[in-house]
């Protein structure tokens, strides 16, 4: 099974952290459904070009969070996740993307006002009706 995890080599976060947060996101936003069988540790490590040590750590962490469960001999599955937990993490990836955008702004020495102006412009471009009506 292929899992849409993308590693950004140049992010400062350690590899295991990137993999773990993306996998957690895929489970919490329902893209990976309850009961889905995950790739074996070696298989996922090979597809992400990372070590089995890292993937094992990710699986163990998510298992202790209750998001995964491992059945001896059969593999690692997505556990049942309650709706409240899902709701609490719905916007995780969006927040993360905004964080990166703000970091890029800081790197280019944007002021807070400039960043906010850019944000408003982009939102207006993508949500034309709502933006137009409110002004």
């Amino acid at each position, binding site marked *: 099974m292929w899992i849409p995890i993308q590693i950004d*080599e*140049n992010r400062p976060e*350690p*590899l295991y952290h990137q993999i773990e947060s993306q996998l957690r996101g895929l489970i919490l936003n329902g893209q990976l459904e309850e009961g889905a069988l995950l790739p074996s540790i*070696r298989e996922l490590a090979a597809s992400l070009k*990372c070590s089995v*040590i*890292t993937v094992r750590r990710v699986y163990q962490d998510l298992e202790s969070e209750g998001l995964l469960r491992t059945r001896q001999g059969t593999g690692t599955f997505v556990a049942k996740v309650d709706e409240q937990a899902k709701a609490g993490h719905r916007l995780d990836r969006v927040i993360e993307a905004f964080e990166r955008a703000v970091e890029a702004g800081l790197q280019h020495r944007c002021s807070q006002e400039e960043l906010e102006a850019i944000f408003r412009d982009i939102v207006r471009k993508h949500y034309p009706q709502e933006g137009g009506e409110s002004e």
Partner: protein
Amino acid sequence: MNAMVYTDAAASLSGVAVRRDGFAFGPVDLEIPRGLVTAIVGPNGSGKSTLLRVLLKLEPCEGRVELLGEPMDDGRDEEVKARIGFVAELPHAYEDALTPEEKAKFAASWYPGWDWERYRKLLRSFDADQARGKLRKLSKGMRRKVELACAMAHNPELLILDEPSSGLDPFAWKTMLEELHRFMEQGDRTLIIASHITQEVKRLADCILFMHRGKVLGCYEKDQLFDEWRSLVVQPVAEAGSDWLRKLPVQGWAEAAPGLYRLETDKAGETQACCQDQGCRILSVQRMELEDILGCLIRREERTR
């Protein structure tokens, strides 16, 4: 056997040394973990092949070697050798006159676990099942494929490969990686591979062992290594003076452009924090390539000599 044995060592060396004219290897004290892929990386002549050869006691050496929990003693290690697969750096001259089939038959008589079906499947997968004639007449790559199939046909507990991809075309190389992943999928197998191909190391290895001039520079978990080693481009503040660099934890540095410095560090987080404390602007942070990390480790070693 449990499918997830990672804690014990597949190979352990203590005080292993080889002394020959013009070449000194060791003394090496080392444990190579079971269940993982350990890549051995180093410049030409750094002792990668010697390390693999002393593991199998193919070369006289001082010290103690244990493989798969058994001591490698001259003449008394046949049983443990039957649980190991090995592809040497260069093909054996004494096999020149054999056909692939004859070589396989010879290997089959040696290894109790030999599986002809696995052998033929491997040959087919490497696209080498049509190889005929004496090994000497085969292309370098074709001969390599036969050697790999022979080394893996008994599904060894420990597979030792010395630059296995030399001579392989890109398709065969990819197939080899797939077969090695499949081999490791079993969970309790161990692969030790000497390689100078960065992509091979990145795709296969769990641990990386660096060698230089017959010495082990260190053995690292691959992802941690690439997480920690980064190259930074920084711009110091104008009034920084001349000693700002000396206060930073860096492994190497160079002036990349007027007023811009490229720093190499094995403590990415710490170095970045220090740069910010000193008022430096960090323009970019990138992961380092394997060869650049090796270069830093070698320079560090040379400084201590």
